[in-house]
């Protein structure tokens, strides 16, 4: 049965009216809710979160610039925000297969300077933000996914509906079936993170990306380690360029020392890579074997694993963020400073700007219109300046590592020295990431080393420590527009790239009875990174929300 049939049979759905409905309890969504309650305590604000608790689906580096947090809670220290570890040192390394060269401090472009920032577990920050929001009277409902945007007769967003629970694998209701619920808001704010499933629908419906560059993406694969006390260097921030990426693919590593002998590290690969044999997961595993990386981890133990797609977020690709009845904030819109490898401050700031517009609109009794004050405020904000200033960074690197280094040096090092804040030129790109894959026949297969189970691991043992779980008896939430395409196109032309770019082993080509191969989707492994939705060459894979509460249970990732 489809949702309409279910509503006819079991409905109508219960509904509840709020002033503002927020989708997603991450930094952006919670900042929206918090700022709105600070300005307008009487506002009724509800936040839906598909993870089992706030922070359960949060994954980030993360080095946090506290600028936005200072504005949201000037007393965040007294309130006990888990920004515990100031950055104590910045290492930018260029790796070759066996060697590493540290870029001298005076030559490091300013976007890589992290003095004054904090090494955090963003999941912990989110959990703390959720406590602050609840103390202000925000209602947060974790374990409930927003599955559907609701529109009124004039085509304006009037809210969202939560997903149905208890639908079996066959799509039919089980004995435990429960219909979803409608949450209506004067305004609905979408803060789902990069490649939000509803955000994607809104971008299409209201043509919000028209006239903009296509968004570009990357996948970050991350691990959390506990290291021996003598190896801990709390506050040390390391970024690496070069090996194991060759010149044709864009990517780099990060390794941050947290408090409590913890090290968080990961590898980011641009999703415009061309060779379908590339595997971001295995690049990350291989990267760890470099002496400059493994030296930090020796004798340590891996605690957790996860992955997430990231938008590269240059302002050239930033969509219109408002539409009748709602707005996009944080990574759902594409606020991210890829050059500084940071987005949480942008997420918080964008949520605050949106909340300020919401408070004004609610104050004058408006509803369901366009919050134009939000993009206007953004244009005047420090966030807009900051993003403009680094807008070409990724695009120069896409022209090759040498060009990237040279032009970043000019834009982020030389120009500022002579008083020019923002470069006078702007680069553009026209092709979306999924169009960059080359046929497998034109590419060289990549042979990755086997995992040793101590420093390097396979996918399944990795997913295990992400605490990922989905109710088994439910339809796969990785849906295919055309079930034949994975074999006729993806496997035939591109050697089945989804089995490599998926960091959780969701996609597997297995032998079928007829001597050929078929795609098996292990949906219960999915860590909700959204890479498949982005990179699938014909955009045949559509990620939808599974039953609420499913997915990873990250503890401080």
């Amino acid at each position, binding site marked *: 049965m489809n949702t309409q049939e279910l509503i006819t049979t079991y409905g109508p759905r219960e509904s509840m009216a709020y002033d503002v409905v927020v989708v997603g309890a991450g930094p952006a969504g919670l900042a929206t809710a918090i700022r709105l309650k600070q300005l307008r305590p009487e506002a009724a604000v509800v936040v839906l979160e598909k993870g089992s608790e706030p922070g359960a689906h949060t994954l980030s580096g993360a080095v946090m610039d506290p600028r936005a947090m200072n504005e949201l809670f000037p007393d965040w220290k007294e309130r006990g925000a888990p920004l515990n570890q100031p950055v104590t040192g910045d290492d930018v390394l260029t790796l070759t297969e066996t060697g590493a060269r540290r870029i001298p401090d005076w030559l490091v472009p300013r976007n890589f300077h992290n003095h004054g920032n904090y090494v955090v577990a963003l999941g912990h920050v989110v959990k703390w933000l959720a406590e602050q929001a609840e103390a202000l009277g925000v209602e947060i409902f974790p374990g409930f996914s927003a599955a559907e945007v609701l529109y009124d007769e004039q085509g304006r967003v009037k809210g969202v509906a939560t997903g149905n629970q208890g639908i079996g694998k066959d799509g039919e209701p089980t004995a435990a079936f429960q219909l979803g619920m409608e949450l209506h808001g004067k305004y609905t704010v979408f803060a789902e993170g990069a490649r939000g499933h509803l955000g994607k629908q809104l971008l299409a419906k209201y043509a919000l990306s028209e006239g903009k560059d296509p968004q570009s993406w990357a996948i970050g694969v991350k691990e959390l380690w506990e290291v021996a006390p003598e190896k801990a260097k709390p506050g040390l921030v390391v970024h690496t360029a070069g090996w194991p990426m060759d010149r044709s693919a864009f990517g780099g590593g990060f390794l941050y020392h947290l408090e409590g002998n913890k090290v968080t590290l990961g590898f980011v690969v641009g999703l415009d890579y061309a060779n379908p044999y590339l595997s971001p997961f295995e690049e990350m595993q291989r990267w760890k074997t470099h002496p400059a990386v493994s030296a930090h981890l020796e004798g340590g133990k891996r605690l957790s694993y996860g992955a997430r797609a990231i938008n590269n977020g240059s302002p050239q690709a930033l969509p219109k963020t408002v539409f009748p009845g709602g707005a996009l904030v944080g990574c759902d819109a594409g606020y991210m400073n890829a050059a500084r490898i940071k987005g949480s401050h942008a997420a918080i700031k964008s949520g605050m700007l949106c909340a300020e517009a919401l408070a004004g609109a609610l104050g004058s009794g408006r509803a369901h219109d366009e919050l134009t004050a939000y993009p206007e405020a953004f244009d005047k904000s420090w966030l807009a300046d900051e993003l403009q200033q680094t807008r070409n960074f990724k695009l120069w690197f896409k022209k090759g590592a040498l060009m990237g280094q040279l032009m970043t040096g000019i834009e982020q090092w030389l120009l500022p020295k002579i008083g020019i804040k923002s470069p006078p030129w702007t680069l553009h790109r026209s092709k979306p990431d999924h169009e960059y894959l080359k046929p497998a026949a034109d590419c060289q297969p990549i042979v990755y080393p086997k995992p040793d189970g101590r420093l390097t691991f396979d996918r399944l043992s990795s997913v295990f420590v992400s*605490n990922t*779980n989905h109710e088994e008896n439910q339809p796969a939430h990785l849906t295919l527009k055309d079930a034949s395409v994975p074999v006729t196109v993806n496997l035939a032309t591109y050697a089945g790239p989804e089995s490599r770019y998926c960091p959780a082993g969701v996609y597997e080509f297995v032998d079928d009875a007829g001597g050929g191969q078929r795609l098996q989707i292990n949906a219960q492994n999915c860590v909700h990174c959204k890479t498949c939705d982005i990179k699938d060459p014909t955009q045949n894979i559509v990620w939808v929300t599974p039953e609420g509460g499913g997915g990873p249970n990250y503890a401080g990732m």
Partner: protein
Amino acid sequence: MKILVAVKRVVDYNVKVRVKADGAGVDIANVKMSMNPFDEIAVEEAVRLKEKGMATEVVAVSCGVAQCQETLRTAMAIGADRGILVETSEELQPLAVAKLLQRLVEREKPDIVILGKQAIDDDCNQTGQMLAALLGRPQGTFASKVEVEGGRVRVTREVDGGLETVSLATPAVVTTDLRLNEPRYVTLPNIMKAKKKPLEVLKPAELGVDVAPRLETVSVREPSTRKAGVKVADVAGLVEKLKNEAKVI
């Protein structure tokens, strides 16, 4: 008929726990917590008895830190009418919990107390039995079926040899096994309603119970990891390994 259900807040069953570096216990800082699954089955059973008209009120009880209120709200979202939290930040062992529950049973006078047979964190499987003993009342443990008839409770128990059915005079203590029922989904409307249900908070001292731990944890260790297997070339190789390496033949 009134039913008292005891619920415990434990580390979520999806979380892979980790022994602290100093071996003093399991690291639960910032990990997801939720209701012990066996207790969820207990709440579900109590609510079903109420829905069948067998019970008039379902009271959920939890003992532990302030956040156990969330666990009680979940119980109330499933259908419990009200909640009682005995709040303490002390480590609670089964005997202390049983004593707290004993006092609450004396105060609330339920006809049936339903508990999970064990909690998935310490796997003790003691509280229900201790409570029955302290109260001097009959117990039906590891229930796979619970029926109420003529002021008695019929409990079908899962025992090694099969199923055993006992008939208990009330008040009685029942502990749930995995196959008793499948708890329902907690729906958003019910969570919203549960926020408005009454929740009383007590301290152990108000019940006159000393909850100080009686047992000392000596050490906590992770299970040893399984060694990777090896492939042998032929039967002779296998026999050789079994004889000289495994020393089993």
